[in-house]
């Protein structure tokens, strides 16, 4: 499969920005945990709350701008429609059953239904992380947005949920690249596998 240059660039910018956002976000979470656990300090970025926030509020521009560029390109070029859609339950069920028995072929010409679902899901996760992040950053100035999320405290939980969706995706994504390493090079060089 050939990945267009715009997709490869935005993919790697996103990888860097997302790593910074998650690692610093975990440090921010640790300052006032929502649940009965904290993230191990060695996995976090910033060393203290102020450092973590500085990273988070710097990298958020990169993450959001890159996401907007990807979405604009993906929509205008038809990339999202051609490669990632449709996402249909029956197909997903069929392909997921094959995948769990390790019989799902990576035919290299198009994404299977499970892949399409996961890519669409992580796209929604990033969008949700950005919107809920804005809602907790500016609960007064962007009050309508914060209201949509049920206010500041609920928006905080949505922001955590969005992170969990993204991290869940990354774990699966990296595991699959480790299992099928030949999928890595096309995302760098753009050449077909």
């Amino acid at each position, binding site marked *: 499969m050939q990945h267009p240059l715009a997709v490869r660039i935005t993919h790697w910018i996103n990888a860097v920005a997302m790593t910074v956002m998650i690692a610093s976000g975990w440090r921010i979470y640790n300052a006032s945990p*929502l649940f009965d656990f904290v993230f191990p300090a060695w996995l*976090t970025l910033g*060393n203290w709350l102020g*450092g973590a926030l500085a*990273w988070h509020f710097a990298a958020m521009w990169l993450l959001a701008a890159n996401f907007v560029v990807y979405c604009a390109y993906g929509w205008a070029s038809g990339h999202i429609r051609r490669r990632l859609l449709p996402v249909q339950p029956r197909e997903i069920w069929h392909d997921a059953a094959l995948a769990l028995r390790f019989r799902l072929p990576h035919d290299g010409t198009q994404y299977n239904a499970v892949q399409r679902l996961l890519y669409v899901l992580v796209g929604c996760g990033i969008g949700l992380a950005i919107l809920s992040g804005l809602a907790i950053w500016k609960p*007064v100035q962007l009050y309508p947005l914060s209201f949509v999320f049920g206010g*500041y405290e609920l928006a905080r939980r949505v922001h955590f949920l969005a992170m969990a969706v993204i991290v869940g995706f990354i774990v699966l994504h990296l595991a699959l690249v480790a299992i099928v390493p030949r999928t890595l090079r096309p995302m760098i060089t753009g050449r077909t596998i």
Partner: protein
Amino acid sequence: MNAADHRRGLERVSRRLLLRQTLSLGALSLLTGCNLEDDDAVDRVLWAMSRWNDRVQAALFSRARMAPTYSEADITDPFPFNAYYPPEQIRHVDGNAWRLEVFGLVRERRAWTLAELAALPQASQITRHICIEGWSAIGKWGGVPFRDFLARIGADTSARYVAFRCADDYRSSIDMATALHKQTLLALTFRDAPLPAAYGYPVKLRVPTKLGFKNPKHIVAVEVTNVYPGGFWEDYGYNWFSGS
């Protein structure tokens, strides 16, 4: 170079060192094999981004946009105590001896007593206090609308900053637009009673459009200025504007 300049210089150096340690460890955990020179650049980029974020937030700020208000039933009880020191070190200020000094770009540089402030027209609000740590709590504050106070002291409202110094050696500062916001209060009461020591007796600044650390307690001096005043946490690296 006089003593004050020296002290400021030293403070700046120790601040930088702290931030550098902070960020270098963070960067090390991110980029294996990166050296210390890179961290200086990283540090500078993060400070520059924080100043950029100040400008973005100032542009986003609207004096017409009010922080949401709540009912008495929503008030968080007990309301959390938070400061840069533990509860054992809460300052107990003598309200009779206390004075609020006024400095800088004002017409009337005089000290105010608690009784004088209490005699001014009062307002109250039930709003959400959002801490930079992430938690939030709803409280009820009453006091003098800060813009009325600024008018009484003849403050130059075209100045950029209003700075606060506190009896617990805390410092902070806010932008003039926020100082003139209708909900910014020089608060004397919490839940209709004089501010308890833990919440900043005798006077704290209540700014529902900013994070909690921009709400200084035990205020002893107000200064209107065009020189960036920074603040206790701001100098360590918390974003200065920190608007909600």
